[in-house]
Each structure stands twice: as C-alpha cells, then as structure tokens.
C-alpha cells in the first residue's frame, strides 16, 4: 500500500512538472521548438514528396501492366514490355546472402573486440573497421570486378561446383559475375557497419551485470550469452537493419559484379542476375519518355516499398523485443 502511494505521488509530481514546462513558454523556447518542428516537417515532406513523385511517374506502367510488372521476367524496351521479377528476386537474394554471412561474422568479431581483445589492439582494429565502412562503394565494386570475379570464374566457382555441386546452389556455368560475387561484396560492405554498431552497444553493458554473472561462476561465453547479448540485442538489431538498408539499396558495387542479366529466378548462386537498384542505374541514361521511363521509376517505387516493409518489420521486431525485455525485468522482483 505505502509503496503504491509513494509511486503515485511521484507520478503526480512528474505530471505537474511536465505541465509547468508546457505552460511556461519562454520566447526562446518557442522559437527553438518552431525551428526543430520545421526541420522535422522538411524531412517528412521529403519522404512524402519522394513517394508522390515515384507513384505519379510510374502510373503509366502501373495502369498498363498492373501486377504482371512484378511477375514478368522480361525487361524489353524494344517491344515495350516490362517486368522486374529477376530484379526483385536478385535484390532479396543478394541482401539475404549478405545478412546470413555478415551477421554471425560481425557479431563474432565485435564480441572479440569487446571481451577478448587487448586494449591497444582493439583501438587499432576498431579504427581499421571504421575505415572499412568509409570506403566508397565503387571501390568495392572495382575490387569485385577486377579481383573477385576473375578469381571466382577461374578457381572459386569451379571448386565449389566440384565439391558441393550436388547442392542446387552451386549448379550452372561458372561465370565469375553473378549472385555469389554480389553477395560476397555486399557482405564485405555491411560487415563493418554491423561490427561498429554491435561493438558500441556491447561496450555499454553495465559492468555490474557482467560482474554479477562472473561472481556466480559463469564462463566468459555465459557472460556474453546471458548478460551482454540480452542487453545489446535491440541495438544490434538496429545495426543489422541499417546494414540491410545498405544492402538493399546498394547500386554501384552490385551493378559492377552481379552480371546484369534478367535471368529466371534460380537458386544457383552462379547465375548472373539483376537488382532493382542496378536496373535503374543501368537503364536510366538511355530511357526514353513513356513506358520505358515509367518502368524504371516503378522499379524505384518497388525498391522504396521493399525498404519500407523491411523497416516496418524491423521496428516491430525491436518494439516487441523491448516489450519482452521490460516485461521480464518488471516481473522479476
């Protein structure tokens, strides 16, 4: 009872405090609030404007092809028939590939950096990883095109085919460029992002929690498993979402190594493919007004929607994780 009363009165105090803050409006505050509100509105306006431009300019193809734009394989300006199924598949495929490899790698690396790495080495490594994140994507693309693709063509893909050829993933003719190359380049590009963000959030795990577990006789792995990861998971997920956003939208590097061929969606990683972003980058220069241009803009719209959906799913995931964490914390005492 008494505890309840204390918390109630605390809440009331807080409320009164809020009220006072809202009522007493100094001109400076008003001005400042107005300015910040303006900035938020500008951002909102930009998003709304982008959506509006994308939708209004892709109306011709939306009207003409409707849903078949999503399921048609051919992107054919000669016969004015457009579909982006290979590009949608390629976008999702390469991003999924990159996440599957970059998340465990990145988590492992950041755990090492936070828990096992000697301090001076950690500073150097952290610096190098941040440097990796700052390399322009076209450099990754050049590396992919000049180094990775020839190696995959001559050594990597034939080896995979020879030893793991029974998997559908490694069938077909090794071309060097294709989903595999694009996936590897994307993995490399998002890895530093995941490492940086997870390292930062792992570093702020309260020392007390770590020490408590250590005092109970936990191993280092158990400390990480039961103290660090639960504490940091929301932040880590945030980093993964940032990384996914980069992978979905990456244009230059992927265009240089994905092979740019509208093939039937296939599980084979050797297949040259397309992504939505590379369709736009490749075709925009020569697109003529009419259905062709509209098709490219609709590809942009679809990319926008895919990004939107993944972001919403991710927010929802984070929110539910946070609720879970709060629920378990509240239930414990």
């Amino acid at each position, binding site marked *: 009872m008494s505890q309840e009363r204390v918390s109630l009165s605390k809440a009331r105090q807080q409320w009164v405090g809020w009220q006072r803050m809202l009522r007493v409006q100094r001109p400076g505050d008003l001005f400042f609030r107005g300015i910040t509100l303006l900035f938020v509105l500008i951002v909102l306006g930009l998003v709304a404007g982008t959506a509006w431009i994308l939708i209004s300019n892709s109306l011709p193809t939306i009207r003409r092809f409707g849903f078949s734009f999503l399921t048609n394989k051919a992107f054919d*300006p000669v016969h004015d028939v457009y579909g982006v199924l290979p590009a949608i598949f390629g976008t999702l495929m390469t991003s999924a590939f990159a996440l599957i490899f970059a998340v465990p790698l990145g988590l492992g690396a950041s755990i090492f950096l936070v828990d096992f790495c000697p301090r001076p080495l950690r500073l150097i490594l952290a610096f190098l990883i941040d440097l990796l994140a700052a390399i322009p994507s076209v450099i990754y693309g050049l590396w992919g095109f000049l180094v990775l693709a*020839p190696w995959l063509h001559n050594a990597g893909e034939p080896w995979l085919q020879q030893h793991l050829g029974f998997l559908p993933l490694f069938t077909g*003719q090794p071309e060097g460029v294709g989903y595999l190359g694009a996936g590897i380049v994307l993995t490399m590009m998002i890895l530093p992002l995941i490492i940086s963000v997870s390292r930062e959030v792992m570093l702020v795990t309260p020392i007390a929690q770590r020490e408590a577990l250590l005092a109970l006789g936990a191993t280092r792995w158990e400390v990480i498993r039961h103290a660090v990861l639960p504490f940091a998971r929301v932040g880590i997920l945030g980093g993964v979402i940032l990384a996914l956003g980069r992978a979905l939208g990456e244009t230059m590097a992927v265009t240089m190594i994905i092979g*740019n061929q*509208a093939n039937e969606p296939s599980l084979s990683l050797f297949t*040259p493919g397309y992504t939505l972003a590379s369709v736009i980058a490749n*075709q*925009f220069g*020569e*697109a003529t007004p009419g259905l062709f241009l509209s098709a490219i803009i609709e590809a942009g719209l679809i990319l926008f929607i895919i990004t939107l959906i993944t972001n919403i799913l991710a927010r929802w995931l984070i929110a539910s994780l946070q609720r879970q964490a709060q629920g378990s914390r509240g239930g414990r005492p």
Partner: protein
Amino acid sequence: MTPFTPSTSHRGRPRLRYLGALLLLGLLALLAACGNSNSSSGGTTTGSGSTCPSTKQLTGAGSTFDNPLFSKMFQEYPKVQCGINVNYQAVGSGAGINNLLQHIVDFGATDAPMTNDQLNKSTSGPILHIPVTIGAVAISYNLSGVSQLKLTGPILAAIYEGKITTWDDPQIKAINSGINLPHKNITVVHRSDGSGTTSIFTHYLSAVSSDWQSKVGAGTTVNWPTGVGAKGNSGVAGQVKNTDGGIGYVELSYVLANNIPYALLQNAAGKFVAPSLDSAKADAESFSNIPADLRFYIVNGSGDNAYPITGFSWVVVYQNQSNSDKGQALARLLWWMVHDGQQYAQPLNYVPLPDTIVSKDEAQIKAMRCGSSACYSGS
C-alpha cells in the same frame, strides 16, 4: 564531488548556444549562397576569347560516344568563332533526346536516331537529324591460343541467342580452318546500360538474322537471351579480358585506343574484314539510297571493304529555332562541325564523314529556320 556539479551544468549551456549559433550561421550561409548565385548569373562572365565583344553559350547533351570528339571540337571552336562557348554534357543518348524535348539544351546528340514516337512528342515542331560522325563496333574476344578469329553475322547472332555455346562448334570451325579451337564455353558479354553501341550492334544482328529480329529486335537496350551485362565499353572489354572464352562488342575507338583483340567479320560481299576507320568509312560510303531525314542505319553495307557493324552519330536540333541569335550561332557551329571540325576525328579514332553525307548535312543545316529567314547565312 558537489562543488563540481554546478560547473558541469554551466558547461552544458554554452554548448547549446554554440549549436544555435551554428544553425544560424548555416542558415546565413545558405542565404548568402542563394544571393551569390543570383548575382553571378546576372553578371556576364567572359570566356577564353578576351577580345570578343560578347559571349554566347550553347548547350548540348547526349551521347557519351561523341564526348571525346566533341570535347576536342568545342575546345577548338571558340578559337575560330569568337565569342561562342559550347557546353556539352555526356549524359547518354536517351537523356540527350529527353533534354532536347524538354528544351533544356540547344542540341542533343544521339547514337540512335529518334523514333517516330519521340519525334511526335516534340512541342516545337520538326526535329532535324544531322550525322556528325561515324562509329563502328568491334567484336572482341578472349580465347587463349587463338589470335585471328573469323566470324560471320549469322554465327554472331546464334552466339548471342545462346544457340552456339562452345567455341569448337562446327559452324565456327568451318570458317576458321587451320585454327585449333578449344572445347570451351562461350561467355557472352553485352552492355548492361542502354547505349548507342548496343543499338548499332543489335541493328546489325537484326539485319543478318531474321530469327534475332523477330525474337529480340534492335534498340539501345534489348532483352538479352543470354550472357552477362557489363557497364560501358570499359566494362565489356574488362569482362571479356577477365574471362577465357569471353566474347563482347566494343566501340571501335575504344578498341583501337586500348589494343584489344578483335575478330574479322564477314561482310555482305562475303569478305572477312577487320574493323578500322577506313572499313567503317567504306561501309558508310556504300549507301547511295539515303532517306531525306537522314534517319537510317548503315549496317551491313555492300562494299568489298565495308565493315558491317557501323552506324552514325547524330546531332538533333529543332528546325524552327525560337531564339534567332542562338539559332544562327548553332547553325554556324553545326556547319563547322561537319566541315572543318572533321579534321579532329581521325586522330581521336573517329571515322570522318564521307562527302556524300556532308552534302546531305549541309541541306539539313540550311533548312533550319530562325523566324522568317534561314539560320545559316553562309554558303
């Protein structure tokens, strides 16, 4: 500890103030920048020709293929014609046409003639096509041990359709007697970006293969049946170089400048011809039946020395110039480009226009109207 607490809160405030000041500064800088750009566009800036009374600016946009030649031409032109600066943006042929249709530029440049559809979109009347240079497309390949490959049009079409998939195919063997062709997969490389080079190449394939024409067709971008796409001439050439067994089509000037191996191609007369400036010119000269609007492809010409994958690059302008001053300057520029300007073609590995085309160009330029009179006043 306690004595320090107030000092920390003090430290907080000035930081905020700094932030505010920074924001204000940023806004001021923005305003100043806007003001600046206004004032600078108002004032006249004189170009390189210091003795010229006034400077006119002509803007063009389009073909990336034309860019090295145009850069040289437009660098030289102010030296012969005082007071005219030409600003050319190599944004791609399609974008150049769009810019012309939206009246953003005074002229466009394109490696594929405008379609009827595009011409109908013009809000300022008819558009004239003026060929300014000739491009040829070489077939580059990478096949260890094979130094002089021969190909025919139908075989090339079959390779790009995915019907011929290995280098030791009987059809390729038949025309390459004495060469030991390896049993290796062919990796077909095409352009991933839309391009005039693709347009010329696919028009050639359509001309020599009815199958290609009906299934794939011709254009700056087509729906490729097979292969991998790479961006730009450098992308295709690089991809072919990287891939043993690769074949790709590359702009001739790029091939000549970079010493890339190319295949001999059988022309309409049955001869195997290497791509060169001379053989491309021979192809262009072999056409006598030229349509009046100059929108035509010169692939698969009939001469003995003609290299068959050849095409024009055009400048496109409005026939009725709304601004007489600019129209006259533009007509003079075009006249110079198809006459004296051609001297810069050969050194840069471009094919100079044959006389038959130059005379047609003259007619087109004379047809440009500035108000009630012709834009071009010379002879």
